[in-house]
């Protein structure tokens, strides 16, 4: 896969099929060969492993969401950024490239439960000249005590696919997608753990599927004092993807209204609309 777009059919094929971010008015992923400044990582060109999830629609949606929030992220001037479940490394590498211009000395951490994924993340980071410390661990285990309250930007593309419960926690690539009941089993473990990591001004970006009941996720987060908004929604042939953003809001708890239900689009009846923050 060394000679660019023509090689590595499986990986680059995925890239080519993707609905481009540009079609949706979002920044286009820069091509390595174009000579323009890279906005995001070029994963298929640098690293892959059979046991590691290749960047796909969900990864691109998350990076496009980060790109669409780039101005706010630059204003935030994060010190510590972290990805939980970094897989190929596409997202954390893209974030580090995107924020490189800050010159603020922002530092990056990435975790993955899969050793191969951690190594692939590292290779991707290195190939793009950025650095994150990569740790093999379950979510944030081992960092939970000392890193609590220090993370300014957390990004998570969780294993969100609804699967039989017993598939959760399987080794290898299954750990990158198997989400158990409603795809929520791992998400519901990640959220409280990542909340503890976030600083007072910290933001969390997370991918979720319609099946995960994002409205419910936002409601649960509002009960814990977090406001939320949908940064990006993208429907592919297979799934409806959301990128949700959460941030601490002292008013979130008091103004959280009871969860609405029904078969209409959940977006139209967001109980947390009133919590949208003009600065975030």
């Amino acid at each position, binding site marked *: 896969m060394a000679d660019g777009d023509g090689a590595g059919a499986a990986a680059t094929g995925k890239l080519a099929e993707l609905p481009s971010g540009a079609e949706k008015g979002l920044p286009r992923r820069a091509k390595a060969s174009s000579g323009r400044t890279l906005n995001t990582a070029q994963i298929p060109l640098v690293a892959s492993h059979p046991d590691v999830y290749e960047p796909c629609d969900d990864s691109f949606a998350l990076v496009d969401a980060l790109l669409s929030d780039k101005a706010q992220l630059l204003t935030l001037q994060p010190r510590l950024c972290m990805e939980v479940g970094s897989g190929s490394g596409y997202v954390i590498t893209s974030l580090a490239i995107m924020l490189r211009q800050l010159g603020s000395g922002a530092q990056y951490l990435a975790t993955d439960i899969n050793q191969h994924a*951690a190594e692939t993340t590292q290779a991707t980071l290195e190939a793009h000249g950025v650095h994150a410390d990569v740790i*093999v661990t379950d979510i944030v285990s081992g960092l939970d005590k000392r890193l609590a309250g220090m993370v300014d930007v957390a990004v998570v593309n969780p294993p969100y696919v609804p699967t039989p419960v017993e598939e959760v926690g399987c080794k290898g690539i299954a750990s990158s997608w198997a989400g158990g009941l409603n795809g929520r089993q791992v998400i519901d473990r990640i959220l409280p753990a990542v909340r503890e990591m976030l600083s007072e001004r910290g933001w969390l970006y997370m991918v979720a599927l319609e099946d995960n009941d994002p409205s419910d996720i936002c409601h649960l987060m509002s009960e814990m004092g977090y406001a939320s908004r949908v940064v990006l929604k993208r429907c592919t042939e297979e799934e409806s993807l959301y990128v949700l953003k959460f941030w601490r809001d002292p008013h979130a708890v008091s103004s959280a209204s009871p969860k609405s239900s029904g078969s209409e689009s959940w977006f139209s009846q967001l109980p947390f609309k009133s919590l949208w923050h003009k600065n975030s």
Partner: protein
Amino acid sequence: MRLLTHNMLASNVRGATTGYPLTLEATKWCTKEVELNADFIRGLLPKIDWRALVDATRALGLPELLPEEQPPEEEIFAEGAADVEGSAIRRIHHALLEVHVQEGSLVCPDTSRCFPINKGIPNMMLHEDEV
């Protein structure tokens, strides 16, 4: 893994009381220069366990890099200190962000459970019966 991350990591193995600080044993490490940012160090320093950082540098065979006691902030962040070779802030920056442990292990101080570091990546995963 840089010493910043070592400073943040603890062992969650069953039987550990604090699991911190992890004893660093490095067989291979290197340094990579990065730009110093005083504001970043200023924001980070209150969160750093100085003792653990000093012990980590000694484990790497760098006994002269950091003093036993953390220098006062007015010394660390004195005007122009970042441009002075060997200044406290330069040493702290170097210790936290420029030293990369590539091979070795992290040992839980309470249980002696060993967490390997391979290719710069510490593996903190526990077996089911260790959680």
